[in-house]
């Protein structure tokens, strides 16, 4: 697979790996059948993401996407973090091979799920959230 240097950097030296013990928002997407599981932990205070960590089972681009996504939302407000798209993640990584674009979708979805998990825990209405099942199916056939 032809990965950019940025992808390889985030793959080999992933930022923000691990769990947050007192996370108040957690999002998990994917499944082992597809070969990809991504879990994102948020520590939110005053509507702002103070800390974020992840665990990922997946290919190089899935790991790099998780790492980049956590970097991109750290310190952001929830509204700003919600606007993070998979395209932005892929661009920040200097691009992903076409067959690997769905790995960046996982990152976007995991962030959305974690934010909504936080909102629900705060008694707020979850934001409208669309899963990119289409892209995922296209590649993994599930």
């Amino acid at each position: 697979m032809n990965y950019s240097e940025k992808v390889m950097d985030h793959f080999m030296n992933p930022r923000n790996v691990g769990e947050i013990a007192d996370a108040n928002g957690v999002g998990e997407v994917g499944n082992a059948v597809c070969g990809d599981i991504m879990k994102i932990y948020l520590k939110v205070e005053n509507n702002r993401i103070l800390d974020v960590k992840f665990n990922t089972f997946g290919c190089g681009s899935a790991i790099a996407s998780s790492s980049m996504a956590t970097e991109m939302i750290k310190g952001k407000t929830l509204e700003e973090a919600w606007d993070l798209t998979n395209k932005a993640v892929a661009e920040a990584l200097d691009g992903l091979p076409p067959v690997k674009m769905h790995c960046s979708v996982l990152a976007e979805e995991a962030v959305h799920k974690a934010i909504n998990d936080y909102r629900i825990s705060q008694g707020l209405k979850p934001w409208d959230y669309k899963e990119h099942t289409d892209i995922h199916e296209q590649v993994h056939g599930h």
Partner: protein
Amino acid sequence: MKRIYFDHSATTPVHPEVAAVLVNYMTDLFGNPSSVHSFGREARKAMDQARRQVAALIGAESEEIFFTSGGTEADNLAIKGVALANKKKGNHIITTLIEHHAILHTCEYLEKNGFQVTYLPVDEYGMISLEALERSITDQTILISIMYANNEVGTVQPIAEIGRLARQRNIYFHTDAVQAASNLPIDVKKDGIDLLTLSGHKFNAPKGIGALYVRRGVRIEAVQHGGGHERNLRAGTENVPAIVGLGKAAEIAAQNLTDKIVTLTTLRNTLIEGVMAEIPHVKLNGHPTQRIPGNANFSFLSLEGESLLLNLDLKGIAASSGSACSAGSLDPSHVLLAMGLSHEAAHGSLRISLGWGNTMEDVQYFLNVIPEIVERLRAISPLHAE
């Protein structure tokens, strides 16, 4: 950086002696074997010699060797060629769930064109059952196609027994020996094989050349149409340099077979023992004894194949995986799933295939670097954390 090639089941380097002879047939002795003149005669002579060399590797006669553009074409020719030439006799073909896609997709094509195909299951070691094979035979069965050795887990099937059964029941027996050639002794006559596929680039001959052995008397028709090359079984100007290279590689393989088996088995066993001793939560895939010498296949639980390959690559080690993520394809290895592995274990698989040029130092280097890589990836994985 040091580069170690542990992916000989994917492809192999061309042996320098092979490269040397074949280049001569590109630039100097470059004639078309169909030509009347001296350039043509030289080419034909070289091709005849190569046919004898290839025949000798598998115990065939040289008139029974037909050159193709590779293993895929030879598999297509064997299956379609026999099916079409014998469709008046019957429309049933038996194969296995763990064949290469060159067989499986060809069978699926035939299923859309009036043939019926039985795909035999395998056990957890990748082995078919002779009883299941026998039970699946009907009076419509015209062909049994079962691979000699599997390309992912290296499991070697009971070829002689299958050959005997096929002969008794008067059914043609084809075997895809792409992974077996140069790694196991092959004797088509002793084992009752009617058709056998070879691919050059798996044993240090060039890519783009292969051969189909067709026992004299087998009814088969051409699949690629055109000139009368290869006695009307395979049209297209003969790839003389590659054919000469295939012949030379077959000769080298035949000479070194016993040595190679001993060397690769020793290296492979050291590698397997090292991995099993050093790394927790790892499973060896394939058969404990009935496997080709150079093959080791592991599942490292809770990690994913492509990320493992990338890490190994950064350490200079080239290997492969049955994870769908590494192939950009839909599903992980159909072979591992057919053997009953979970999706997770299939995604976490690593195939090491040793070959010409590998040494004990290579194996030691691998054993030195693999534990840390596995540990690091597991530290990232949510499956392991749980």
